[in-house]
């Protein structure tokens, strides 16, 4: 039964390695992840060899020198050997040499990642961790987004990596999209940087990797690597001010409900009276695939449930239940879904 489960799990692991949306560290899709992958294979090779040698010797010794209940010398003690300086020296020097090899290989990857030459065409994004969502600011493009990070793919001949400048608004968080790069922590009062350069377009997944409070588990990461054309389109759409002057009367009424409730003290909808900074920017919330930091798909029903009681999807989320009546909930849902 276990063998069956093992082979199943290995099969599913291999499948997820080859597919998009994988979170396996052995399915690298960018330079930092690839250089880590190369180093890991070297290290895995060395430690496997050490394991085979030492475990082999141990097994041999245990079998060869087990006490045998019968025989001429069964009751006699074996010869007492107290030690040997030559042998001690050899099993000190050989591990030291292995350590030197590992250390040099490690140093090379540390410096090639942390001290990489920054191309002029690199895109800057500021990542701010919050309990329990991600804020993305594009300072040169004038865009503020949340929870879904859009970046351009990087052509190795004309690299356009994305440099992430990271900090936190509250507790410690960690940005980990395993197929793109290793993780980097977001720490209040500290600025960290990392870079990613996916070469194939698509969606890359990850999640917060530093315990940050009740909803650490549902602080999911979604990175959309866009082709240059897709990215330009996305930038243009995000730079537009929020939709106003709705043809749909429900959405217009919902806007009024939104602006007359506490929503605006935490959320921004650019160009309106909603200028709160505590929660995610909602200017283009309708254009996102998910809500609640990737916890559920962005559907009108899910938005309605979330506004009614955020704890339904994310117990411990800092947004309070809004206590709107059913009619107002419908209106606010109509408003938020139309903020494309």
């Amino acid at each position, binding site marked *: 039964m276990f063998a069956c*489960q*093992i082979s*199943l799990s290995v099969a599913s692991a291999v499948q997820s390695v080859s597919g998009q*949306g994988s*979170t*396996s560290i052995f399915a690298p899709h960018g330079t930092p992840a690839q250089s*880590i992958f190369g*180093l*890991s294979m070297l*290290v*895995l090779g060395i*430690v496997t060899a050490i*394991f085979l040698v*030492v475990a082999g*010797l141990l097994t041999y*010794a245990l079998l060869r*020198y087990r006490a045998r209940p019968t025989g001429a010398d069964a009751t006699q*003690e*074996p010869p*007492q*050997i*107290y*030690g*040997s300086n030559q*042998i*001690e020296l050899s*099993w*000190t020097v050989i*591990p*030291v040499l292995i*350590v030197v090899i*590992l*250390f040099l*290989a*490690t140093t090379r*990857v*540390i*410096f090639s*990642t*942390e*001290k990489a030459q920054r191309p002029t065409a690199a895109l800057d994004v500021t990542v701010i961790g919050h309990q329990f969502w991600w804020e993305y600011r594009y300072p040169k493009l004038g865009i503020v987004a949340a929870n879904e990070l859009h970046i351009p793919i990087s052509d190795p001949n004309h690299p356009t990596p994305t440099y992430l400048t990271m900090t936190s608004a509250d*507790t*410690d968080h*960690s940005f*980990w999209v395993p197929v793109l*790069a*290793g*993780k*980097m922590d977001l720490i*209040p*009062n500290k600025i*960290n940087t990392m870079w990613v350069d996916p070469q194939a377009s698509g969606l890359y997944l*990850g999640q917060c*990797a530093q315990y940050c*409070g*009740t909803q*650490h588990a549902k602080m*999911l990461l979604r990175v959309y690597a866009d082709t240059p054309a897709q990215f330009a389109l996305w930038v243009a759409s995000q730079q537009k001010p929020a939709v106003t002057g709705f043809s749909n009367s429900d959405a217009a009424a919902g806007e009024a409900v939104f602006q007359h409730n506490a929503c605006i003290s935490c959320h921004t909808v650019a160009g309106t009276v909603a200028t709160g900074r505590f929660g995610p920017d909602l200017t283009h919330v309708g254009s996102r695939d998910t809500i609640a930091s990737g916890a559920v798909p962005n559907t009108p029903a899910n938005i309605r449930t979330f506004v009614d009681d955020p704890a339904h999807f994310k*117990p*411990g989320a800092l947004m309070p239940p809004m206590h709107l009546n059913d009619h107002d909930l419908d209106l606010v849902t109509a408003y938020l879904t139309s903020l494309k």
Partner: protein
Amino acid sequence: MATQTPIAISKGDTALSRRLFFDAVQDWLTTVDHKKIGIMYIVYALLFLVVGGFEALLIRIQLAIPNNTFVSPQAFNRLFTMHGTTMVFFVGMPILFGFGNYLIPLMIGARDMAFPRLNSFSFWISAFGGVLLYFSYLGGDGLYGAGSAPDVGWFAYAPLTARIFSPGHSTDYWTLALLLSGVGSIGTALNIVATIICMRCPGMRLNRMPLLPWLYLVTSVMVFVAVSPLTAAQIMLMLDRYVGSHFFDTQAGGSAVLWMHFFWIFGHPEVYILVLPAFAFANEIIPVFSRKAIFGYPAMVAASVGIGFISLSVWAHHMFTVGLGPYGNTFFAFATMIIAVPTGIKIFNWLATLWGGKIQFTVPMMFAVAFLFQFLIAGLTGIMLSIVPFDWQLGNSYFVVAHFHYVLVGAILYMIFSAFYFWYPKMTGRMLNVALGKWHFWLFLIGFHLTFDFMHIPGILGMPRRIYTYEADRGWGTLNMIVSIGAIFQAVATLIFVYNLVSSYFKGEVAGADPWDAWTLEWSTTSPPPGYNFAITPTVESRRPLWDLKHPEDPDSNYEE
């Protein structure tokens, strides 16, 4: 100590038997005998082992399937915080101090520890710390009506512990419990150092001392260096929370990274503080059941002292993803890798001790053999984690959880089990049941490998630690189910072990003074030893005084410088 006077108790004389019962309780509560304090440490740690293990079971039930709702996120966060804190501070430390307390005076031919009253104080203050920690389930909400047991994780990173993020008193219970446990640990460490330096019997020079006291000496010195910063940090945290200082309060300009440094300058040596006593047990048990002297005694001592020193400069390998910069990362990577060398020396010396011996697979030896293999694997995954870029991927993932459980369970707990089977006869005068011991061993072995071998893989597949649930589409479900099934095996095995401890106390085979035909001084006195340990203070001429007695034609003293 009061010697036990045989008194004939007539049936029905309840007043007298009740008085005897209270006499016994009073004797245990007020004792300053190192053996009784040692046993109290051990029993106390075993109680918490069962509690911490139960918490682990609840965690595994919650994680067995994706998006499970067995416990709430809040309850889950308390569970992993309490599990980690309990296992490190109220199982690992007291059980190792318990064995140390019991064995060190016996092994060095002393009649008690250097400071018997300090010994008693240290035990009771640590014990109070553990009780305080668990009282948080009742008292954590305090005056604020918020909070319960601590939920900030066992390393309690700032600023999650600041009052704004952790209202109520839950974090205060954690802080005070660790503060008290730290005071107790420093007291016991002081006692062990003083005992080993000053109380050795005639003839026992440092280079004739058995390896167990040697390793406890190194561990105890490390306790001074490591536990003090933790205690200081707890006081700073209290000041932050109640006096308005800003050491770690990032909202007012404090530093979250400062806490990490304070915590891990304690936290990493702590791992070695826990593992060195486990090595110490292996150093005594493996030679006895290989029927050979330990191979390379001076190298073993040097490696232990080396580990002690190097372990003080590896703490920031817990912080490779914090943004220390390439130079800091490189230094701590090197320090971490180089500690593999003395550790390797130990494994090779144990191997050489087995080599050419006559290996007896008794229950303690079975645990020790499993320890050797499992510690080898734990060391190798440790090397993988010391490779900084590899750690950028593996750090804070389930791979790390699997790695350190391989150390804490696969190595340390296995050697603790081994030590129980080995020294239980000395402590109680009765052998542990062998059949139950084998059931315990094999069930625990199956459970351990189901749980902790498979736990590495979700980490490689991107599963971070400390999440109360996970997405169904990540391919982690089957693996987590296997991990959880293993936990049940371990729980059953542990229950068998506890049953064996209790039933063998009453019904076990009588052990005699030296059931294993061993060589160190504790086996030269009766089982259990009298209050004064040795009627005549022993005199030794080699590292294995009982070998010399049993083999007068070929004593060790002929070969040792």
